[in-house]
């Protein structure tokens, strides 16, 4: 498996060329097992690492997502539909290519080129448009939309629990953020049904902007959704797996837009995902002097940019979920105005921090940031045994969160990983002003023109999703003894 996936996903893999031949639902006869010592049962699991396939076997991302074995075994899986080459070939097609840029990728390139996030955004806009991209948008805009939905969902769960002592399905606390695809994949494949009801049903910013573009914007600008090729730029390889989920594919034709069985063209909210590192590869492959590139004005329709051209958004390199929901809940539920940035206290390590609100001596809100696999493990076990007293958890699979995603540009020679993270955290909000998502005018107009109001039927249909526990295959259990 590619080292580029988050550590959480890598852990669930079994063994490079080994896992598929045991657990994979796709026949991989070309991987030839070679037993080192057949009389030892333990060695049944292990094939010689010198055995390599002579010919790449193709597995689609969907095959991988449907399987309880590995996540995927070879990078060739990715390269099929999620590559720079595929992206470039779409530029020559009859489709309108739209790029949505994540703020973490912006920061990664800004740190690499020693520019500001806004400069990077404008230069990337210029570069993408010069090769035929029609529009470049900003996932901090769709993130604000998801934050509004997450706030709404949290208030509803919190109040429901007070009424029903938490026994209503879909109303469980702690509510766990859902933006990290590594975490979602791990929860579905390894943890299973007990954890899924705790996870927020709100889509990630990537899928929310995909829904906004394919369901709403395309209508607004008069382009059929199947004539739009939508690419996101993300700090994370796992986002490629997220984009390929069946839940995020819909069929055209008539009313049943979300009906997967309907015949008609299958359309993905996000057609392809490029990582920050792959965008850097693109810049290098085109021999572009990025620092010298002229800046182009930003596309305002789905971008957090004000009239003066200044960027705005929530702070927090992993999306600011805990902070935004905490402030909103404190105000809505307890009438407390809390100024940001919140003072998160380190609990066990810098990747596990919490913030609490006390009202009349009682702890009424207890939120935590929980990043990296080890912290995720502990919190999951606490939930399982009913000893988790948090109300909200912002969970990210990567240590240090999304700024440290597996798709980010690697440290330069002589730069430590720690230094790079610090640099990214500094640059992330460098010329971006902090703004309340609930006051975002673009989000407001998305509700006015399309979704009606937070938590509405339409919002549930387009901005929420479902999770599916994966059952371990019996074959994988048998063969491993």
């Amino acid at each position, binding site marked *: 498996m590619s080292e580029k996936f988050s550590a959480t996903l890598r852990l669930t893999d079994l063994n490079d060329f080994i896992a598929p031949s045991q657990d994979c639902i796709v026949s991989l006869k070309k991987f030839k097992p070679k037993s080192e*010592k057949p*009389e030892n049962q333990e060695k049944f*699991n292990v094939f010689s690492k010198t055995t390599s396939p002579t010919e790449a076997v193709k597995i689609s991302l969907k095959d991988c997502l449907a399987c309880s074995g590995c996540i995927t075994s070879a990078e060739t899986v990715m390269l099929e539909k999620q590559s720079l080459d595929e992206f470039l070939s779409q530029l020559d097609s009859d489709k309108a290519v739209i790029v949505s840029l994540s703020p973490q990728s912006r920061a990664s390139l800004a740190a690499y080129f020693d520019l500001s996030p806004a400069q990077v955004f404008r230069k990337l806009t210029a570069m993408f448009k010069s090769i035929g991209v029609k529009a470049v948008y900003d996932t901090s805009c769709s993130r604000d939309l998801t934050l509004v939905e997450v706030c709404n969902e949290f208030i509803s769960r919190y109040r429901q629990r007070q009424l029903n002592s938490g026994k209503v399905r879909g109303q469980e606390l702690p509510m766990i953020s859902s933006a990290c695809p590594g975490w979602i994949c791990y929860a579905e494949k*390894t943890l299973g049904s007990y954890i899924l009801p705790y996870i927020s049903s709100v889509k990630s910013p990537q899928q929310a902007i995909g829904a906004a573009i394919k369901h709403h914007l395309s209508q607004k600008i008069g382009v059929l959704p199947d004539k739009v090729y939508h690419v996101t730029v993300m700090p994370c390889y796992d986002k490629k797996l997220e984009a390929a989920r069946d839940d995020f594919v819909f069929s055209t034709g008539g009313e049943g837009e979300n009906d997967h069985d309907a015949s008609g063209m299958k359309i993905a909210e996000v057609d392809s995902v490029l990582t920050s590192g792959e965008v850097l590869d693109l810049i290098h492959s085109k021999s572009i002097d990025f620092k010298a590139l002229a800046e182009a004005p930003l596309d305002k329709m789905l971008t957090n940019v004000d009239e003066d051209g200044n960027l705005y958004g929530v702070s927090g390199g992993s999306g600011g979920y805990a902070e935004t929901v905490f402030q909103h809940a404190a105000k809505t539920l307890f009438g407390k105005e809390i100024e940001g940035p919140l003072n998160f206290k380190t609990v066990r*390590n810098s990747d596990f921090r919490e913030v609490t609100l006390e009202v009349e001596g009682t702890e009424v809100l207890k939120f935590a940031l929980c990043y990296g696999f*080890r912290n995720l*493990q*502990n919190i999951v*076990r606490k939930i399982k045994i009913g000893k988790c007293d948090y109300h909200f958890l912002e969970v990210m699979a990567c240590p240090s969160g999304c700024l440290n995603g597996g798709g980010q540009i690697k440290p330069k020679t002589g730069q430590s990983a720690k230094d790079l993270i610090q640099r990214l955290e500094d640059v992330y909000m460098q010329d971006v002003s902090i703004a309340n998502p609930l006051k975002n005018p673009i989000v407001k107009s998305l509700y006015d023109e399309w979704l009606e109001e937070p938590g509405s039927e339409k919002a549930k249909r387009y901005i929420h999703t479902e999770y599916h526990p994966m059952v371990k295959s019996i074959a994988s259990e048998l063969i491993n*003894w």
Partner: protein
Amino acid sequence: MELAEGKLELRERQRLEGHMDRVWSLAWNPVTGVGGVPAMLASCSGDKTVRIWQQGPSGSFDCTAVLEDTHTRTVRSCAWSPSGKLLATASFDATTAIWEQIGSDFECVAMLEGHENEVKSVSWNASGSLIATCGRDKSVWIWEMQSDNEFECVSVLQGHTQDVKMVQWHPFIDVLVSVSYDNSIKVWAEDGGDDWHCAQSLGEASSGHSSTVWALSFNEHGDRMVTCSDDLTLKIWDTSENPSQASGDGYGPWRHVCTLSGYHDRTIFSVNWSSEGLIASGAGDDAIRLFAENKDNPLREVDGPSYSMVLKKKAAHVMDVNSVQWNPKDPRVLASASDDGLVKIWELTGLSQ
């Protein structure tokens, strides 16, 4: 210790029958066999159980407890806490169970869940505050004991590229060593922040093994370790600074001292260093071998330390020997476990005092 040439003998004292499948691993309870407390040994097996064997007044061992109905697959490894009160058992069912002795009974008081699949080995650190586990998912986990038998994961270490066969803490300091199907030996230490990191990796390029490394053992002083491999060799490693002398996180790198080749012709699955300096190996040819350092070698100053075989017990079992463990309190007593389903207690004779 003087080796009386030719007189050395490994006598089978007792065979412990009871396991219904191959026996994978053994652990002597470190606080027993001394001061009137009868010696206690744990064995774990493909039959999904752990058996506790206790020495009776006659000197023979009896099975006093069977730990069953907890693990749903093979129990691959077991380890006593330094206090001897807790037993950790690692299983192919992806869990590690913690058992507490209550009277003569054992109660499962905690389950460490997190490994994706088979857990292959478990080890307690010197103070008993940390547990390490490793397994087929290529990861090494470090767990910290909280109050009330609760355990928190403090690190998930992903340096190995294949199945990790064994983890073992250093006898005095919080340094962990892991060995793997990827042929490497890795040394883990705290990174100065709040996590752990790989402080050293000993691969083939560092005079390391050329095939799966199955096991390791430290000597009594903690300044040497021995590793055994599918490449049919034992390797001795030395740390230039004595880590037991170093303060806190002090740690000297390990370097290759010598390779013991030509003695084994099948995979070596287990190796264990006695407090008297004898190294025992258990291998796929059913034999147990003993090795000792050549202390009176005149070329020692020039060539460095060397070790040679002092005893080979052919047909110690009728199948693979999976584990050999010296009794820490009585270094003339060795226990072995085999695919033949037996645990055997051996007595070493012919050593002068």
